[in-house]
Every structure is written in structure tokens, then in C-alpha cells.
């Protein structure tokens, strides 16, 4: 319902047709929420696909590796997470260290309405190919050949909010990590397992 923000779901639909189920898991999501960390933790590579409201030319596809997730999520938290936040949560809670990449496209419009603008629609197969290339390169790399016991996951998100947040997360990749372990005064005791 937000024009080009539906880009991620279109790419997910295309990848679902093209990728063998044994190669990757394709998820088409409205937004990135905390429980996604469980699935992410079960995989070694996660590729996020989303629209980006970052001023770039509509239909322009970019690929960005999200880097080491640990320590990268220290910003305010909403009902949704950034792509980097999902990776960080998977690492913090489940000891996973999946690699993450973000394939994004510049939008022309996110005004209410269905359907993609022509340039963004044309970028759907381009982005799908970018995802496929990432998976192929990862699978062919020696390190991955040794460790790729599970297939890579493609997590695809689509909403205006997630689109902005995911790209924001990516654009902050070069910033120094916030001191996440600088705790405030604890007011209550931590819960314990019974």
C-alpha cells in the first residue's frame, strides 16, 4: 500500500520461484521483529532486501555488507528492529554470528497505492540477481564450503518503516559502536531461571 515500499516483497516472490528450497529460505515480512532473531541464528548468511528512502535515484540497487553485528544496536527501539539489530540480537541471545548483507533500492514514491514505479519494478530482477550472486559467492568460498551446513536465509522486509530503519542501520555501519555495555543503575534484580 506504499508504492515502491513493496519492492522487498516483489523480490521475495521472485526469489521464491527461482531459488531451490534447499539453497535458501525466503521470508517475506512486513517488518523486522525480535523473534526473527531465532531464525536468523539458525543460518550462516542473511540477506535483507528492502526499499530505501535515502535520496538516491529510483531503481538504483546497492549491496552492503552489514559487518559485525555485535555492539551495533544501541539506538532507540521500536516495534520493529533494524537489520543490524536482528543480527545483533541473534548473536547476543543465541550465540550466532551470521553474516549479513543488505540489498536495497532507491524509491521513486512511497505515496499510498499499490504497484511499483517503472524504474523500481525494473530493479526487481536486478536485486534478485544480486541476492543470488551473494549466495553463490558465499557457497563457493572455501570458508563457506566448510561451514555451510545450513542453507543461507534471505529475509525480505517491506514497509515504509522497515525500509527506512533498515537503510538507516546500514548507513550507520561506519559509525563507532556505542558503548552498549555501559549499563545504567539497575533498579530491579534480574529474572532467574527456575
Amino acid at each position, binding site marked *: 500500500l506504499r508504492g515502491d515500499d513493496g519492492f522487498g516483497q516483489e523480490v521475495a516472490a521472485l526469489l521464491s520461484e527461482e531459488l531451490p528450497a534447499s539453497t535458501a529460505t525466503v521470508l517475506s515480512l512486513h517488518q523486522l521483529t525480535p523473534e526473527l532473531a531465532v531464525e536468523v541464528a539458525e543460518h550462516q548468511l542473511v540477506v535483507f532486501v528492502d526499499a530505501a528512502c535515502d535520496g538516491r535515484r529510483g531503481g538504483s540497487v546497492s549491496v552492503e555488507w552489514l559487518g559485525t553485528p555485535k555492539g551495533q544496536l544501541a539506538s532507540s527501539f521500536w*516495534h520493529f528492529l533494524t537489520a543490524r539489530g536482528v543480527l545483533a540480537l541473534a548473536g547476543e541471545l543465541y550465540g550466532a554470528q551470521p553474516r549479513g548483507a543488505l540489498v536495497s533500492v532507491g524509491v521513486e514514491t512511497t505515496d499510498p497505492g499499490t504497484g511499483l514505479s517503472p524504474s523500481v519494478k525494473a530493479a526487481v530482477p536486478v536485486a534478485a540477481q544480486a541476492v543470488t550472486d551473494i549466495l553463490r559467492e558465499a557457497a563457493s568460498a572455501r570458508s563457506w564450503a566448510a561451514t555451510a551446513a545450513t542453507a543461507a536465509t534471505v529475509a525480505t522486509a517491506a514497509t515504509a518503516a522497515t525500509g527506512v530503519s533498515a537503510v538507516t542501520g546500514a548507513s550507520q555501519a561506519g559509525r563507532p559502536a556505542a558503548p552498549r555495555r555501559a549499563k545504567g543503575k539497575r533498579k530491579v534484580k534480574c529474572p532467574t531461571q527456575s
Partner: protein
Amino acid sequence: MSKGATSEHNNSEIVIEPVTRIEGHAKITIQLDDAGEVADARFHVTQVRGFERIAQGRPVHEMPSLMARICGICPVSHMVASAKACDEILGVSVPPVAVLLRRVMNLAQVVQSHALNFFHLSSPDLLLGFDSPPANRNILGVADSAPELARDGIALRRFGQQIIERLGGRRIHPAWIVPGGVSAPLEASQRDAILAEVPDARARAVRTLRWFKENLASWAEEVARFGNFPTLYLGLVHETGNAAYSDGALRVVDARGKVLVDGADPRLYWDYLGEAVEPWSYLKFPYFLPLGYPEGIYRVGPLARLNIVDQLGTPEADTELDEYRARLGRYPSSSFHYHYARLIEIVHCVDMIEEILSDPSILDHHVRAKAAVNRSEGVGVSEAPRGTLVHHYRVDEDGLVEWVNLMIATGHNNLAMNRSVLQVARHYIKGEQVKEGMFNRVEGVIRAFDPCLSCSTHAVGQMPLQLDIVGADGAMLRQVVR
């Protein structure tokens, strides 16, 4: 403005922007008097409503799926209320098993939504403290300090989401709830998979509730100041007096428990509820019509539901409800207790899911009644995680939607949220020199209600929220942006 930073200030006004960890964006303005004391506070929603217009001209059969797009967190609640409105327009009698299946999905919705609020939005304040550094006061801070609590939250959220996915085929915006029932029956394998996960979900919910109860005394100050005042309480109850989420009759009680409305048909909501408009917010201000505006202030959602029901209806949850009432009184009035009520509701909803799915008739295959348009108007009312949800449609003879009115839980609570912000601001804010923890408490009282502004404004997408502190002369003193 950068995230987490306080920004602008001159010598007569303060702004905090935005209030974080709520769904969507809005603004809080705190007005100071000449002495620097809080004179007034307002919770604004600054985005225009959208979905009521988008729906016009659409076929009525599309409405449940279309209305689900209002919110990525509680789409099922919108689908349930929307489908009920459509049921009335079609003039169908929904098959009994479809009624139960809708209930299961709605209960799962409550579990996952409550889990998201408590564990991921509110627990950073509760666990780390309202005064802890904002950079750490988030889910990663919780994961770092109490990983088991964070894992419990994720597991409960996943439990609810997986039920929705199993029933609806997808976890977000499933198109399974349709006018006349549901689109497909439940398979035994799906039922068994859900039931197998119930014990783990229940254990995690009970463990979290125990932790909350053990620490409740440490939040005494917040309990006293977070929207602690008498109001009416409104919601749906079954004929038995048990909690109702997908069906039930309207009940309204006052702060002392006097029943003002009982057994009322919620489809006649306009007999009981009025909607006031203020020029500074797009979010309307519903009120209990017989008492007028603003005296007819009421609350909905977990706190209200626990106050209006006789009991919840499952043994473990009712034991918890008894303790809740023993500790807090029969009609607790602090909005801080939304947290406590939310946790009890998670336990109850998990139990109800198990109870409904254990009925052998749940596998019946007659799950949908089909009909053309037989009426020009329909109203559907259900309980969303945040409170009572009303969908009201009018259609033309071809079944195309002509008019839509939505009353959303966050809207019902609008008066109470405004009064709560004022109460907290008056206690914690003196002049423009306000510490981060004080601002966070102003935000925290809003988070207790778990407002969903995407829902409440029916906006497409999400909105930012800011907090302004304004001097007696109207000039901005301070503004904070997350």
C-alpha cells in the same frame, strides 16, 4: 536532530521529540507556568487519518484483508472486527467452529502483541531503570543484562506469531479470516503442533509474571504517579462474566465498580460513546456519552479488562487475577498496572488457546458461510490487545464501501493518556532543567498504554513522536529527539 539527544532550547520553551518505543509517532507538549511548574500537558497525534478514506469504493469482501494493513503488530484484531462487520452486511451466521478458530487467532495476536510491548518496549525501563542511559535502555540492554528474560519474550512472541502463521498461512497480514468465517479448516497436524508448544509458552509467561510480582514493590513511585486516577473502564465480557476477546457484550464500570452498562450490544456503540475533537490532535477523544466530555473519561485494554470481568475463565489465570486483586484492590486505577494486567492476560490467552484447541470439534470442516450483500450496514466489535476495537461500515447495493468509521483502542485511551502525561509531568518536571530519566517517565506512562498510533490514526505507515516543553509565553524551551 540526532537520536538520543536533547536539542534546541532558548529561554522559554522545552521540547522532547520523539517519545520512543511506542508504535508510531506523536508529540507531547508540556506547558510551564511563570513559576516553571507544569500547567498543562498534551499528547498529540499529528498525522491525518488514512484508512477510512482508502477503504471507500472497495468491495466489502476485501475489507478484512485491507483493514489488516492498518497495523503490522495487530492485523488479526482488525481482521476479526472487520470480518464481523462484514458478517452483518452479508447477513450470515458464522459456523461455530469458525467462531472458535477466529478466537484462537485473536488470542495468539494478544499473546504476541503483549509480549512485544512488555519484553521489548517496557522491560528496558523496568529492568534497567527509568534513569538508565538511553543508549542502553533497549532490547539489547535487556539481552545483555537478563538474556533469559529477553529469550522468554522472543519465545512468547514467536509462539503467538507461529499460531497466526499456522492458521493463516503467513505471519503478517494473513488473509484467512474472511467474511462468513475463515477460509480453511484447521488440520490435526496444525492443532497438534500448536498444542505441543503450549507448555513452554505457559512456563515462560508464568516465569515472567513471577519476576514482575517479585519486583512490583520497587516500582511503587511509578505506580503512584503513572496515570493513577479514577476513570470508567470499558470492554467486552461473555455472558458468564468471563473475559471476551473476539465476541461478548459491552460492559462499563466506574472506578468503584458500579456497573453502568452491562450486556449491551456493542454494535450499538454510538448509544454509549461520543467522540470529541480537539484542534491540536488528529486523534479523537472518545468519552462515555451519558457522562459527557471530558467527565466520561474511560480506559480500555488489559487494565480495563481485568477490572470489568468477574473472572478471566481459566484456573491459572484466575488464581493470578485473585492475587492481583488482593495486592492492588478490586479496581486498581494506576496505568502502571497495565504491565501486570498484560502479563496475566498472556497466561490466560495461552490457556484459552489450549482449551479451545482441545475441543474435538475444532477440526470441523464447515468453516465458512457464503452470501451476497444483504444489508447496507454492519458493525464489528472485538478486543484488540490494546482494547476495544470497532469497525463500522456502510456499503451500496453492489457491496462497495461507502463509509467507514473505526474506533481504535488507542483512541479510547486518548483522554486517559493525556491525563496521565499531565500527572507524570507535574510530578517529575520542574522548569526546563529536566533530566533524561524524567523525560523517560513521561514517555513511560504512554508506553504503559502501549498505544498504536498507526492504528489510532488509521494512517498509512508510521509516524514520529516528539516531546516539547513550552514556556508560559508559548515559546519553546526544550525539545528532545530520540
